[in-house]
């Protein structure tokens, strides 16, 4: 197990290096630089600015410099937010995004699994059709439309929740729902089809032949096996929730990491874009690792750490 995790960490480092390199060169390839919008800049000042941020160096020097700094968890200064470093932005923005993301994931899991289970148990009956209509709606309506509809109905019309901004728990409800709508629908469909598959298995018939009630069969025999695909979807789900939050945070005016990301792309704020990308990559790579470990705990047939050589 320890050996397995060690090996996985090594892969994570390798992936990170590839991601850093790719973003670094892609940024260089894009035309313009952080100071292009300020047209009137005299050439001397521009040269000074470039020199200050090290942009006058040859690319390999910049690249090496950046790699070294990232290794020390230093993503450099922001080009646009004066006197703020990328680390500052992450430190203030990430906790907000994390709360929002976790709330959305929890909501998506709870509602999605329940909907899926009901749909599967009442297969081809009205409960099934209702759950699947909700699911299709959830998948087809983009989160930003969901967000505006929620804002209009629940905040403006009925005034139950604040329209936007960040502060209390009430502020988190609407963005979390908007963020969770697509994953909820996806999890519901995934749970349903996986439940149906498990229900057709012989061991469910065995459980029924034992005289167990439908409830017990669902809890003890069906659900655990049916949740395996849902668990493996958790990796991409955290990716989805995090990328989804770019837009949602903008709409609700939430000072999370996502909104910094969107703004910095418009500003060509190289260091912020790269820093946030690297940071997100780290989160994603670790959540995938976590999912794999979780998978091994749920399904005893999967033994982590046994190499292909057949230990």
């Amino acid at each position, binding site marked *: 197990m320890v050996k397995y995790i060690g090996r996985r960490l090594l892969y994570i480092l390798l992936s990170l290096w590839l991601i850093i390199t790719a973003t670094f060169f892609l940024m260089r390839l894009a035309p313009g630089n952080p100071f292009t919008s300020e047209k009137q800049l005299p050439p001397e000042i521009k040269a000074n600015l470039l020199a200050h941020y090290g942009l006058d160096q040859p690319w390999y020097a910049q690249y090496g410099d950046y790699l070294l700094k990232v290794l020390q968890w230093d993503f450099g200064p922001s080009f646009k937010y004066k006197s703020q470093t990328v680390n500052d932005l992450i430190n203030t923005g990430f906790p907000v995004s994390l709360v929002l993301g976790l709330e959305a994931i929890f909501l998506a899991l709870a509602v999605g699994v329940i909907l899926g289970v009901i749909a599967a148990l009442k297969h081809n009956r009205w409960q099934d059709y209702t759950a699947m209509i909700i699911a299709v709606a959830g998948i087809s309506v983009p989160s930003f439309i969901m967000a505006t509809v929620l804002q209009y109905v629940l905040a403006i019309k009925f005034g139950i929740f604040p329209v936007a901004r960040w502060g209390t728990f009430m502020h988190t409800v609407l963005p979390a729902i908007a963020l969770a709508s697509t994953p909820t629908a996806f999890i519901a469909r995934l749970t349903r089809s996986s439940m149906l598959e498990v229900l057709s298995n*012989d061991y469910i018939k065995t459980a*029924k032949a*034992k*005289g*167990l009630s439908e409830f017990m069969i669902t809890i003890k025999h069906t659900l655990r096996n049916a949740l395996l695909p849902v668990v493996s979807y958790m990796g991409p789900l955290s990716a989805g929730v995090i990328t989804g939050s770019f837009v949602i945070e903008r709409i609700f005016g939430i000072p999370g990491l996502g909104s910094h990301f969107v703004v910095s792309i418009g500003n060509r704020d190289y260091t912020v874009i790269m820093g946030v990308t690297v940071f997100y990559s780290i989160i994603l790579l670790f959540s995938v690792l976590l999912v794999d470990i979780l998978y091994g705990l*749920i399904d005893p047939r999967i033994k982590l750490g046994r190499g292909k050589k057949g230990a």
Partner: protein
Amino acid sequence: MEKLLEVKDLCVSFGTHGGEVQAVRGISFDLYKGETLAIVGESGSGKSVASQTIMKLIPMPPGKITNGEILFDGDDLVKKTDKQMEKVRGKDISMIFQDPMTSLNPTMKIGPQIMEVLKKHQKLSGSVAKERTIELLRLVGIPMPEKRINQYAHEFSGGMRQRAMIAIALAANPRLLIADEPTTALDVTIQSQILELIKDLQQKIGMSVIFITHDLGVVANVADRVAVMYAGQIVEVGTVDEIFYDPRHPYTWGLLASMPSLDMTDKAELLDIPGTPPDLTNPPKGDAFAPRNRYALAIDFEEEPPMFQVSETHYAKTWLLHPDAPKVELPEQVKRRVRKLAASFDKPVLAEGEA
């Protein structure tokens, strides 16, 4: 002998997109206490559906019991609700399935899978149930049961899994065990071990067994009586001797003639039954076996044959037993085994709707 189970004119059908499939079309049979009845027939003959209907394990819908009674100890199981059936399943009637690879839960340890039954039906507490589980595993011949209860199904071999399934089935001392092709997925040496185990435990516990198989070798080994099913009906039923040494139905002849035996000469060929079973969405008029039957009479295509009684225990559903039917030459492979059985009537008589 006392009857444990009486199935009367049972009909089961399944609603599908292509129409209603009549999987079981009016079967009747009795099962006595302590007896083993084998139900044989090819795939799709309705033998599995019939047996799963006894426990009401077929999914309803799309499955439906359209007619008949299943009297277990005098109680009609057809009328019971699902909640009432939970008290019968696993306690009075248990079942083991064909494929031990898939009939155990892969993410649950073997011990708890057996303990579930004990907790449900015998209301045993955790530690007592565990003791009893170890005892059961030892009974079915699983070595080191204390260690085995903490293992998962994938850590068991096929034969060991089937033993564990038998332990689950026998946990609450059922009065009827339905074994649905329990040895089909196992290799031959393991097969005979499992058959011996079932026979042995049957004697210890004194339960009745319904043994579903398409392997006539297995039938000869375990059964007291045999029912031959074709296209959702029982076409012949009798004691093992009657079915093996004095078969009367052409379908049974076909089955026997297609079974290899050790004393066969090199020249003797196995006979196959040509064609495939009929589509039970629209069961054919007359005898369902007629199109594949080389002995078919003209009337077979017109009218369904009634059940004829050949002896006290032997019934067959074929027009060939009618007094006016022509004498036919049996297939060579069957002729060699046929002998005159003392219990047979002089002439077959029409059965009174009972089999």
